[in-house]
């Protein structure tokens, strides 16, 4: 074979890859971790509004004794979906949004390890979230609580399709998290820039890494539990059927072996965010970086040994109760270490109270309250009085809203100029912070009182005759909590207004508005598609800070002086930019594949033929995925007829 030069394309023409860089196609078919991160964030915020509306309806119902805003059935659906939405469709994906966007930037990579898989995760999550929420319109949502205790979740006691939607929806969303956890673990372990040792990684990246391992091991447990439940509901299995000799506590153990690590899955990204924000605005490295990292990892490990503290009243027997009680106290230690370290980071610093910093400090304060009330539950006998009351509701909302959500908002204010090139308005940001901070304390603070006064959770009404009088009047504190909830809602509205305002009015932010310390600030804002013109060489923790500041001898002794600006650092990096940058091409197939999953789920619920159609779509997506070329080629093999036509017009010499 003498001549092989005009070889046809390396690819099969039928499956060309999309190449659009603008327009809706550039978002739908994107595999760029930054775009996927932004989409994750937008969808998560949408579900935040959905879950928030559900919360407001719950608080309206509980605002007065014997209230009738919601009926019993609707109320049960409401609190089930509030928890499900907030945990699985808001906090987890919002953390995933930050992780997706920032993790490659923080470790100096051009994308995640498996870009198409990343897109697949996002679309699966989106379709799964929509799927769960369509249950509202298809016969009612799940009404068994987000813990879905058996046997109340069986077909006998919960005959509507709500639980089926919930089970299948969580399976779908779980696939997304699992894929994304594998993706991010591989990214962190394999794609760090030269010199970026593990112990030089930013704490946010560290915490995200711990979370991905937690997800990797926790999700299979809930997957198995959900399979057992759906087999019981749909195929007559009897895993939790008491009269067939099963023990319903099995579900509780399975659920909480997943459910407790889930708590750390929710909170650790936020720990990471404020461990970035506090040093930046204190102009000082994180106090005890190693302690913070290792305590994060310790939480990740010990978090597996405390699940049964959710079951102190379930009758496990005194030995298990005592063991889990002590284990739960142990986990307070690494958590306490973090709080101390954050405080000591501020100590001796030069504090700059931006909105991001305020959210971070607010997070420490609120999380400390949640942590301390958590320790009171660890004492098992005290917990038998506290569990399943509003005291517990107060505790975990301080942890999740006060801890996780405040941290994520700190992240918004801190990274907004990096992601969108414009900084969120600081004035509105302060309003946002104070409304939320006060709102949280007024919503969840009174719940401590309500719980200890004996108001249990998950009750559609609380009766007038049990309200009591004076300081502990349940009516008064319930009303306060409802007002508080609306204060939080106002705070969130200010945030949304701020987003709109910023994008309409604000000017372009400087390259390094916060005098930041880590790699993601060593590139353009917003970053170019390939993140870094040249992959940076990392020499230290807080690389950017060390490039900007040097120790200078002055007449007062050795002082840190800013010797170069971020712009200069960036220019130096761009000067040695790589000539050929190879980026993954967009792809049609992740969204196709993801689209098949909810169809399968609808099919399982309503009509098996539909499930086969869904499976066919998934299969089609998978084969399309395999068969498409690894990159889009600009000179892709054109159709001969077009080609022919063109060439004939072409004057040939």
């Amino acid at each position, binding site marked *: *074979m*003498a*001549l*092989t*030069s*005009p*070889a*046809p394309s*390396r690819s*099969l*023409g*039928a499956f060309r890859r999309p190449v659009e860089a603008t327009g809706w196609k550039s978002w739908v078919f994107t595999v760029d971790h930054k775009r996927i991160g932004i989409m994750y964030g937008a969808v998560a915020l949408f579900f935040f509004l959905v879950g928030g509306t559900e919360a407001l309806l719950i608080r309206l119902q509980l605002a007065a004794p014997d209230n009738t805003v919601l009926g019993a059935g609707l109320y049960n659906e409401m609190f089930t979906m509030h928890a499900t939405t907030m945990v699985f469709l808001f906090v987890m994906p919002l953390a995933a949004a930050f992780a997706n966007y920032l993790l490659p930037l923080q470790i100096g990579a051009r994308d995640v390890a498996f870009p198409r898989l990343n897109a697949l995760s996002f679309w699966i999550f989106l379709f799964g979230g929509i799927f769960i929420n369509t249950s509202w319109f298809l016969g009612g949502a799940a009404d068994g609580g987000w813990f879905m205790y058996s046997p109340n979740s069986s077909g006998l006691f919960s005959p509507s399709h709500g639980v089926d939607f919930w089970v299948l929806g969580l399976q779908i969303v779980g696939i997304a998290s699992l894929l994304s956890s594998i993706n991010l673990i591989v990214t962190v372990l394999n794609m760090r820039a030269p010199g970026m040792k593990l112990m030089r990684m930013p704490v946010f990246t560290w915490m995200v890494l711990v979370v991905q391992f937690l997800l990797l091991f926790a999700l299979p447990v809930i997957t198995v539990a959900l399979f057992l439940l759906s087999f019981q509901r749909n195929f007559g299995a009897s895993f939790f059927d*008491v*009269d067939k*000799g099963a*023990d319903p*506590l099995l579900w509780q153990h399975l659920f909480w072996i997943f459910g407790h690590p889930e708590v750390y899955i929710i909170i650790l990204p936020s720990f990471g965010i404020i461990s970035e924000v506090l040093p930046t605005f204190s102009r000082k490295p994180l106090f005890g970086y190693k302690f913070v990292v290792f305590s994060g990892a310790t939480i990740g490990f010990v978090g597996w040994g405390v699940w049964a503290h959710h079951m102190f009243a379930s*009758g*496990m*027997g005194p030995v298990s109760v005592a063991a889990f009680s002590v284990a739960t106290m142990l986990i307070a230690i690494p958590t306490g270490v973090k709080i101390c370290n954050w405080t000591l980071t501020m100590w001796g610093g030069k504090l700059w109270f931006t909105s991001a910093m305020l959210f971070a400090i607010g997070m420490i304060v609120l999380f400390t309250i949640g942590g301390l009330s958590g320790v009171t539950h660890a004492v098992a006998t005290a917990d038998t009085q506290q569990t399943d009351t509003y005291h517990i509701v107060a505790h975990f909302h301080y942890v999740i809203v006060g801890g996780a959500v405040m941290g994520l908002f700190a992240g918004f204010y801190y990274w907004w100029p990096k992601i969108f090139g414009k900084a969120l308005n600081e004035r509105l940001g302060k309003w946002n912070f104070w409304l939320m901070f006060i709102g949280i304390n007024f919503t969840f603070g009174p719940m401590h009182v309500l719980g200890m006064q004996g108001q249990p959770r998950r009750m559609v009404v609380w009766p007038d005759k049990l309200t009591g009088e004076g300081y502990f009047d349940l009516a008064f504190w319930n009303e306060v909590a409802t007002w508080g909830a609306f204060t939080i809602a106002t705070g969130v509205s200010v945030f949304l207004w701020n987003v709109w305002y910023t994008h309409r009015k604000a000017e372009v932010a400087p390259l390094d508005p916060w005098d930041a310390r880590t790699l993601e600030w060593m590139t353009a804002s917003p970053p170019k598609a390939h993140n870094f013109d040249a992959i940076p060489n990392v020499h230290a923790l807080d690389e950017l800070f060390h490039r900007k500041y040097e120790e200078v001898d002055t007449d007062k002794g050795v002082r840190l002086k800013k010797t170069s600006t971020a712009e200069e650092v960036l220019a130096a990096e761009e000067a040695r930019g790589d000539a050929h940058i190879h980026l993954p091409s967009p792809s049609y197939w992740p969204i196709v594949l993801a689209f098949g999953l909810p169809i399968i789920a609808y099919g399982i619920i309503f009509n098996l033929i539909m499930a086969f159609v869904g499976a066919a779509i998934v299969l089609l997506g*998978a*084969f399309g995925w*395999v*068969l498409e070329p690894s990159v889009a080629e600009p000179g892709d*093999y054109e*159709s*001969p*007829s*077009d*080609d*022919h036509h063109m*060439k*004939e017009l072409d004057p*040939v010499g």
Partner: protein
Amino acid sequence: MFTTGSKLLFGASALSLVTALVYAWSTEGALSSAGTLGLLSLFVIFAFLGGVNYANRDCNVSSMDEAAVDTAAAAQRPGASSVWPAVVALGIAGLVVGAVSKPAVFKVAVVVLLAGLVEWMVLGWSERAGGDAAFNADTRRRMLHPLEFPVLGALALGAIVYAFSRLMLRLDKDQGRIAFGVVAALVLAGAFLFAGKRKPSKRAVLGISTVAAIALLGAGVASALQGQRSIDEHPTTRTDTEVCLQVGADEEIDADATQSVSATSNLVANIYLKADGSLVAHVSGYPDEARAQLTVPRRAQVNLLFHNESDEAQRLTARTGEGEDESLVCTAAVEEGDQAFLSFQAVRGGVLLVPGLVGGEIELLVP
């Protein structure tokens, strides 16, 4: 955008679909009729062929392309020898043999035939896909690997699972211990050998894996041919009157079916048949007390553990209600020194008794 050839095929495909729908409609929706199925099959086949044609652009090249004289698909020498004609032949032979012998052979032959035809077809097509042999090979791989690997993987897994399960069903307890002891020792020995080397040779790994796979498959087939060991039926909870009131044991006693593994924390009571012939209950809430009375709520699930401490096989029977309402539930006969689990619901009061035992009854109160 569509090539000429693919246009024809897609058109034929669409036409088949329309015809199928019309036919199905005119025969009043009999989707399963042979005509409809045939037309639908045509639709799928034409669509597939159209896709293939479209994907390789009818094998056309530009008329202005002089180099195509050498590189055009048509100028390529046919590929090297292929195994697929032989496979197809085997499939056809299998069809004939199966038709006169066993249906199973026929079914396998159909699968072999189909697989052979698909492989042959795609191979033949890919050899003309382009002017570059490497590209052609790549094309074939891209088309077929996504099919081949999952199918072959599933087959391999299936074979392993099947062989392993036959083996497990064949070996009894002691043989099982020996067999798996040997296997474990071999694995350990192999691991030691490999651990000593910096980089184990590929060939050695492959050889050992092959030997292991053949050994497993061989052992599986051999034990499948021998049939499984005899497995005892374990009677547990029974409700038939004859059995539950029977004295002692008449059937094979199952020493292992205690079902008590998980039944330690959720028991209403432990029932002991003592060596002196008395029947006592250690009821939850009365940890140190031997009682002759047990109160259980109406229609709530009651879990008991029966301990036989007498010197002969006995069963525990719960008899509730009277006359027409009487219902019986009992454990299997339990050998001396063993225990068995009894789970039931009661609507009326009654007694817990050991058939044949005089005087030893526990009163079962259902308020």
